[in-house]
């Protein structure tokens, strides 16, 4: 692996992210809308269960959504790079394909984690009490989830050549991933077939791990669906698998 190359791939994405204010604004606005428009409305229907209000219940899911959109968006920029030729500049350099994939995945990780942290700052308004350890835990989980979703996004990007595919990815992959992640409703309440799909969804485990750390005392339907060690195990192994397959998929193009 070439560290200078990884560094500069991350630095480029970060610089472009900082320059593009509108992207940051819309990235922050989306979770706010869901949290305060959808969440507040639904709170009228769903009364608190097991010590958790509905707004508190969806907060981990909203963090997951922030990460999902920004990680996928960051990885899908590979398609733009292909379209506008910049990818060739990277591919013709003496840099291993694995370094390129790791560089891209780390870019997504950093950008998504920053956005997740901004959204996380809303927790006092939801009546949540998080200690410093919980906050650190949330940030660590957010960055691990960001990495795995970014790596997943890179894998998607290797299958698509043009950016017309962007809306396909958004509508048929990203939106279902969001709804079937336990973000808006508990996985344990889903019908069997959807429960099965939710279990295949990498985001499910990220959202579940966040539920463990954000509402550790929750009981009943709004409590986490899996053991936290299962969650972390799945997130870590998915990251590794996606990065390795992504590296291979890049290699194959040559």
């Amino acid at each position, binding site marked *: 692996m070439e560290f*200078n*190359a990884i560094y*500069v791939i991350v630095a*480029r994405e970060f610089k472009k992210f900082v320059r593009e204010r509108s992207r940051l604004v819309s990235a922050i606005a989306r979770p706010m809308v869901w949290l305060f428009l959808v969440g507040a409305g639904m709170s009228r229907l769903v009364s608190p269960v097991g010590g958790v209000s509905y707004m508190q219940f969806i907060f981990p899911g909203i963090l997951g959504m922030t990460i999902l959109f920004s990680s996928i968006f960051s990885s899908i920029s590979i398609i733009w790079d292909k*379209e506008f030729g910049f990818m*060739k500049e990277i*591919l013709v350099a003496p840099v291993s394909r694995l370094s390129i994939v790791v560089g891209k995945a780390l870019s997504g990780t950093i950008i998504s984690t920053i956005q997740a942290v901004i959204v996380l700052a809303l927790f006092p308004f939801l009546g949540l009490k998080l200690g410093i350890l919980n906050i650190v835990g949330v940030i660590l989980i957010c960055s691990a989830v960001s990495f795995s979703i970014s790596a997943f996004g890179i894998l998607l990007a290797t299958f698509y050549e043009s950016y017309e595919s962007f809306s396909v990815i958004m509508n048929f992959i990203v939106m279902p991933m969001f709804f079937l992640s336990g973000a808006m409703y508990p996985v344990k309440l889903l019908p069997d077939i959807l429960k099965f799909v939710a279990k295949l969804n990498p985001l499910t485990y990220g959202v579940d791990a966040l539920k463990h750390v954000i509402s550790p005392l929750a009981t009943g339907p709004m409590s986490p669906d899996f053991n936290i060690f299962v969650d972390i195990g799945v997130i870590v192994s998915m990251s590794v698998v996606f990065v390795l397959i992504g590296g291979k998929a890049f290699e194959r193009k*040559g």
Partner: protein
Amino acid sequence: MSIIKVENLVKKFGNVTAVNDVSFNVEEGTIFGFLGPNGAGKTTTINILCALLSPTSGRAFIDGHDCAKESASVRKSIGIVFQDTTLDKDLTAEENLLFHAYLYNVQKSERQKRVDDALKFVDLFGRKDDLVKKYSGGMKRRLEVARGLIHRPKVLFLDEPTLGLDPQSRANLWEFITELPKQHNVTIFMTTHYMEEAEVCSDIAVIDNGKIIARGSPEELKKIVGGDVIYLKTKDNATAVEEIKKVLNVEASAKGGEIFMSTIKGDACIPELIRTLGDSVLSVRLQRPTLNDVFLKLTGKAIREEESSGSDTIKEEVRAYRRRHS
């Protein structure tokens, strides 16, 4: 020494044979021209040499490294300016070059200096903090050449470097490119459609339909079309034609008030003509064959015939449209 060696290279895309049994060598420190019409297989050959594509069969070496097997060493030895621009237009010129320097692992102590030197070399130092999207086509091209040189490659590939530039920018870019082998110790491998640009090459290969159909220096290639043509006006053309045939022993004929004759060494022939015909000569004009004539003779078509590239043009327009609207 041959820095590029290509042996029986074949590349098939499905049932299209883009490169069909091509072999050639390129000597170190020269400017090698790879000429051919649209779809001849130029870019495909470059992609194989840059280890971006693997060949269907045959082998290619850069500086002794096998392009199919030692891609890392090959990539370190080459720089490339692709046919379509590959700059990040949302970064500044300097950032684009720094990105490259990191990517090629240029030492920390050297990085900034090489970037600055490269920017000065192409006269863009004053504009280094501008986003590339504000650059003109010619500036972008120059920046790409500068970028390709940052890691001190042994071979620089230029795939139609002057495409889409106005005549003046083209001339400037060529002047600059011809300096490169001396100033940067680099071998140039370039492709072009423009025959007149190929005159700067020390060695040329003409490719058509994936096959090399001619090899040699520009002078050697021009000999294929049979040398120079002299056009001449005299007071009495009929008599002059007789004189030329008799004294110079050269075939000549008069047409439309002008005499024309083919010779091998046109410039040496003119003094002799004037000596023979004396005062009767009104004007003399020497036309040397261009590489375009060579191409016409070899393939029966002009190199810049564009009708075959309809789909390319559309693709280019779509790209340009997207660039404008994104």
